[in-house]
Each structure stands twice: as structure tokens, then as C-alpha cells.
């Protein structure tokens, strides 16, 4: 009979509950134990690493008991000194006549190199799976082609963007599928980036940017191309908007110059030369207030109460306190806001000079600015009270044009002015379709 201690494998015989009964010298050496005696009666799992113990008790032992055998189980022995040795375990249950288990026979084979190699394989497989997941879940369409541009792989984003499944397009030239045959590149060219009109399966045009790079292996051979295609329809739309806005800026600048020119001419006609700079400056300032407000709003629409507040910002605290604002939230389109703003400013400077904010007024004089927006009709009212000696101005200056005819013409609204005994009442009305 062969001497079990000379067999180059760890041999263990266990009781039915997996306690060590006999153990050969090889097993003792691998487990880092001195004497077999100390191991007798100990559970077999006590030779294993903590992870191996869990695996043995949850998988191996039940399998031995039910199936009767296990094969090629990768485990780690752990010596008392903390050294680990990788092994493969085979096991066989020995059964009695009634089917009861009489003993468990275990054989351990040294498996360090093979397990290292297998673990390396596993790591590489995980890496590869990682890359596959990366491509699959990319939001950009990724197309993998061979050196002849024939599609090898096509991810979910490509399917979503172009409407073809991977199976539909496999083997076809990607340029035929997407670009209708625009062939302006060779496999040997360096990374290439371009924009193009691609076709969705439905025939719809899709503006795309694509970027192809050769897939080069470690020996420098080109294996194919990887092309990343990005939907640039949103970017294109944004560029359109920018172009339109540019045109609008030019258009508005021209309008502004016309307004400034009119203000200058009219101010010159109606004021004394020594007052010109101050009056003209104030009016330019009002215009500029409007512009600041326009800029601070994200869209080209403006909120009425914010517009009025901005035009009253030049007043002192005491004067501002006499003015009340009352009305719902109304959004104005920019053109109306611009002229209405100028009118409000003009009304406030008139009130300073002649009306409820002037020295002619009583201490309890007030200005009430109220508005309503009903059935698409904006009605804005400027009401001064507590003013004595109210009279209509003797001539219609540019100021009154700003609050009257210019406003009506530019915005398509109507203005009524009433110089009542207690103070001015100014009323503007306009049908508005664009309220938000």
C-alpha cells in the first residue's frame, strides 16, 4: 500500500459532520500544523480562510451531504502564522447501506499558479465587461467598424438616434447608412472630425457631428474604426437663435438712435440752451434705465411693476413714499415696455416740476399708479391728488409727446389726459395679446 504521507496532495478523512479524523503529512505541511493529533476532532473549515469557511459551510458541506461529492472547489488554506495557500478541493461522501453518511473524504491539490491565472482572467473579463457596459450605456452613438467601414457594433444610443437596430445595419458601410455615401476618409487617416446631415431610418434629417478614430492594437495594426456620433440638433437650434438675436440687436440699436435723435431735437427746441444738457441727460437716463431692465430679464418680456419701479428710482425717498402702486402681474413685450417706461419717467419728472411731488402741492399730495388687465385689455392710470393750481401746459413739448402721441403711435394704444383741479389724471389703454 502506498504511503499516504508521500502523496503530493492533502488527504483528509472527516466524520459525517466534517470533523477531521485522519490527515496526511502533505496536508499538515500545507496547513502549517505540526502534529496531526492537535487537529483530530477539529472542524475541517478551521483550516480555511474566513471567506473559505463561509463558502465551505454554506455550499460545500451541504453539497457533500446531498449530492455526495464536490469537485475543483477553489479555496484558501490559512496557516496559524497567517500564510495563505490556494488549493482545489475534491470531496466524496462515503455512504452506509441505509444511505447514511459514514465519512467524508477530501483531497486538496496545490492550485496557486492556476488560481492566480484564473483570477487574472477574471479581472480581465471584468475589465472587458466594464468597457462593454461603457459603450452600451454611452449617451453618444458609438459605431464600431472594421477596416472596410463595415459596421461590427452599434450601441443603444446609435439605435435611438438613427432608428436602425444593430442587426439591421451589421455588415453595412456606416457611411451608406448614415451619410448616404459621402466618402471622404480613409482608414489610414488620423482621427477625423466632421459635421454632417445624417438620415434617420424614417428619412428625417439629423444634424450630427462625428469623430472617427482608428482602433490600433499594441503592434500598430489598424483593426478598424470607432466612430462617435453626436446629435447636434439642439446646438444648431441654439446657433439659429443667436443669429436671430444678433439681427435683433442691430435693429434695436438703429431704433434707439432714432429715439435719441428725436429726444435731442425736441429737447433743443423746447428748452433754454443752458438747460439743454441737464434735461437731455435726464431723458437719456430714463432710456438707459429701460435698457438695464431689459437686460436683467431673461426673455424679451418685462413685468410692469418692475418697469414702473425702475422709472421711479431717480426720486428721493420722501417723494417715492407718496406714490402707491396697485395692479396685477402683467408682462409686457419689449417694445411696449420701452415706450411705456419713457412715459412713466416723463410723468414722474412732470410731477416733480408741477404736480404732486412739486412745491405747489399740499403735504398730503399723492400719486396713485393703478392698472388692470381684463380680457386682454391693459388699463394703466396715473392719478395725482392734492395739487393746487393745476393747468394744462401752454404748449405740447417733447415730454408731452412721450406721454401722448409718441406712446400711442409706437404701441398702438390710446392715451387720455385730464388736468383736474386736484391733480393730473393720465390714462393709457391698450389691447394686448402677448401677456404671459
Amino acid at each position, binding site marked *: 500500500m502506498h504511503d499516504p504521507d508521500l502523496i503530493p496532495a492533502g488527504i483528509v478523512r472527516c466524520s*459525517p*459532520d*466534517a*470533523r477531521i479524523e485522519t490527515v496526511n503529512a502533505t496536508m499538515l505541511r500545507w496547513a502549517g500544523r505540526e502534529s496531526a493529533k492537535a487537529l483530530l476532532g477539529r*472542524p475541517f*473549515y*478551521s483550516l480555511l*480562510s*474566513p*471567506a*473559505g*469557511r*463561509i*463558502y*465551505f*459551510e*454554506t*455550499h460545500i*458541506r*451541504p*453539497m457533500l*451531504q*446531498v*449530492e455526495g461529492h464536490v469537485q*475543483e*472547489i*477553489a*479555496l*484558501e488554506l490559512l496557516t496559524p502564522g497567517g500564510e495563505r495557500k490556494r488549493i482545489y478541493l475534491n470531496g466524496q461522501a462515503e455512504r452506509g447501506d441505509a444511505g447514511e453518511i459514514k465519512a467524508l473524504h477530501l483531497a486538496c491539490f496545490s492550485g496557486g499558479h492556476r*488560481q492566480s491565472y*484564473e*483570477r487574472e*482572467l*477574471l479581472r480581465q473579463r471584468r475589465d472587458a465587461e466594464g468597457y462593454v457596459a461603457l459603450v452600451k450605456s454611452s449617451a453618444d452613438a458609438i459605431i464600431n467598424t472594421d477596416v472596410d467601414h463595415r459596421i461590427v457594433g452599434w450601441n443603444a444610443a446609435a439605435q435611438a438616434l438613427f432608428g436602425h437596430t444593430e442587426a439591421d445595419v451589421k455588415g453595412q458601410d456606416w457611411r451608406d447608412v448614415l451619410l448616404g455615401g459621402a466618402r471622404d476618409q480613409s482608414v489610414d487617416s488620423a482621427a477625423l472630425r466632421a459635421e454632417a446631415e445624417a438620415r434617420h431610418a424614417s428619412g428625417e434629417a439629423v444634424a450630427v457631428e462625428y469623430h472617427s478614430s482608428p482602433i490600433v492594437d499594441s503592434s500598430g495594426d489598424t483593426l478598424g474604426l470607432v466612430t462617435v456620433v453626436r446629435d447636434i440638433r439642439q446646438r444648431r437650434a441654439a446657433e439659429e437663435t443667436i443669429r436671430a438675436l444678433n439681427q435683433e440687436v442691430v435693429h434695436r440699436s438703429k431704433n434707439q438712435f432714432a429715439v435719441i435723435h428725436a429726444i435731442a431735437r425736441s429737447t433743443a427746441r423746447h428748452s433754454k440752451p443752458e438747460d439743454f444738457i441737464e434735461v437731455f441727460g435726464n431723458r437719456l437716463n430714463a432710456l438707459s434705465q429701460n435698457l438695464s431692465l431689459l437686460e436683467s430679464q431673461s426673455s424679451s418680456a418685462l413685468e410692469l411693476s418692475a418697469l414702473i419701479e425702475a422709472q421711479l428710482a431717480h426720486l428721493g425717498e420722501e417723494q417715492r413714499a407718496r406714490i402707491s402702486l396697485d395692479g396685477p402681474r402683467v408682462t409686457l413685450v419689449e417694445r411696449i415696455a420701452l415706450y411705456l417706461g419713457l412715459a412713466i419717467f416723463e410723468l414722474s419728472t412732470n410731477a416733480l416740476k408741477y404736480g404732486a411731488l412739486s412745491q405747489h402741492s399740499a403735504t398730503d399730495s399723492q400719486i396713485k399708479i393703478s392698472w388692470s388687465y381684463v380680457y386682454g385689455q391693459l388699463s394703466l392710470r396715473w392719478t395725482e391728488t392734492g395739487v393746487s393750481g393745476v393747468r394744462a401746459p401752454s404748449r405740447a413739448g417733447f415730454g408731452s409727446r412721450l406721454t401722448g402721441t409718441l406712446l400711442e403711435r409706437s404701441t398702438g394704444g390710446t392715451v387720455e389726459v385730464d388736468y383736474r383741479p386736484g391733480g393730473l389724471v393720465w390714462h393709457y389703454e391698450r389691447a394686448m395679446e402677448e401677456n404671459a
Partner: protein
Amino acid sequence: MTTATTTVLQRHDVRTTGTGHPTLVLIHGYGCDKTMWDSVIPLLKDDFRIVTYDLLGCGASDISQYDKVRYGTLDGHASDLVDVIDALELEQPILVGHSVSAMTATLAANRLGDRVGAVVMVCPSPSFINHDDYVGGFETQDIDALLETLDANYLGWSSEMAPAIMGTPDKPEHCERLTNSFCQADPDIARHFARVTFRADHRADVQALTHDALVMQCRDDVIVPEAVGLWMERNMQAAKLFTLDATGHCPHISYPRETSDAIRQFAKGQAG
């Protein structure tokens, strides 16, 4: 039977046997399937009605429905247990959970209240990982090493085993092959379930359990140290600790007689 009921029963390959009262629902633990109960069922089936099933992702369950979010915690498995109890219209069943499934039974009992009679926990552990004063037996790195061990052991067979484990419950010839591949599972699912099992911490849930509970422990259970049973008896509201004259983590396989005796004694006490 309604379609929903049929669906649940097929999804988990639910099997019913035995006559008697009350009904025992046997829930297998991590690493195997319902066949783990095969040795104790003959010893109990004259006294109880017995229900067994496979946790989703294990045995003959419909693994195509394994959803890593739903089964990312034991709550998903507890919902399945509630579904099985509802589908069979069980009245006050005694839930018998092995190892991690003792926690699944606890979660289901907490949810169903007095619709569950009692809970039997076979080698349970509310947390396998040590926390401060609590001794679970393992450190986080041991669990990471376990996942590596699983990987190493699934390396070889995954592709050739795939046809066998993809079996559907409505094809009996597949079930036949499944019983031949005892304890085998889809590697990806096994790895996921291992992670869920060994990283879970259900100490608060067992403390909240108001049902009578039998905590069964074995000597030399490398998965569950003795300290865990003592902790449970001390911290649970109505738990009795019983140490079986058995060793290891799977007494229902190694010591079916002792295990079934302990279950019977407790369950009959509950029924009376």
C-alpha cells in the same frame, strides 16, 4: 386559482405537502434552494401542512425576474414571502427561516402582524459583520474575500451550466436538470445575493418583532458565533434560545431528526 396566484406559485416553484396544523413555511437560506429541507420534510409532514419555495434567483424560481434593485435588500424577498402567504391564503402560518432567511421571515412577520403565527429561526444572524459591541463573526474584508471566492468558483462552469439554470418552471424536464445541479445558481445572482446577505444589518428588525420566536443554534457554527444567539435572546421581545445537539450551519441537512423535533415541539406549543 387566479392568474396572479398561479404566477406567484410558478415564479417561486412553490410546493405544498403534508397534513396537519398549523402550516409551516420553510424558507431556505443563502447558497442553496428549497431542496435543503428535503430531509426534514418527511419527519414533519404527518404533523403539519408544509410549504416550501425557492427564493427568487435560486433553484427552480423564474430567474429571469431577478431584479437587482428589488432584491438589493431582503425587503424584496420579504415581499415575495408575503405574496406566497397571500396566494395560498395561509392562516397564521409559522415561518421557518434558515440563516439569512430568518431575517426575511422577520421582515414579513413585522409586516403581516398577527396574520403570522410565530417565527422559527434556524441558525439566524441579524448581522454577520461585527459592529462595536456586537459580535457577528466577520469583518467587511472577509465578506469581500468571500465574493472573490465565489468568483473563483464560478469561473469555470458559468457558460456550460447556463442552459441548465435558464430552465423555466413550466418545463418539467428543466426542473429535472435543476435538481441535478444542486445548489448551483446563476453566478451573477449568487454574487449579488451573497453581498445582500452578508452586508445586511437587521438588528433593529428582530428587536421590533413581537411574535413568539424560536432561535435555534448549533455548536461550532462557523457562520454564526454563539454570541449572536445570546444577543438575540437578550434583545428580542419574545425569543427563546435553543441550542441543538448538532454542529455546523445546516442542521436541517446534517441533523434532520434533532431539527425537526425542535420545530415540532415549538410549533405544537404555538398551536395549543
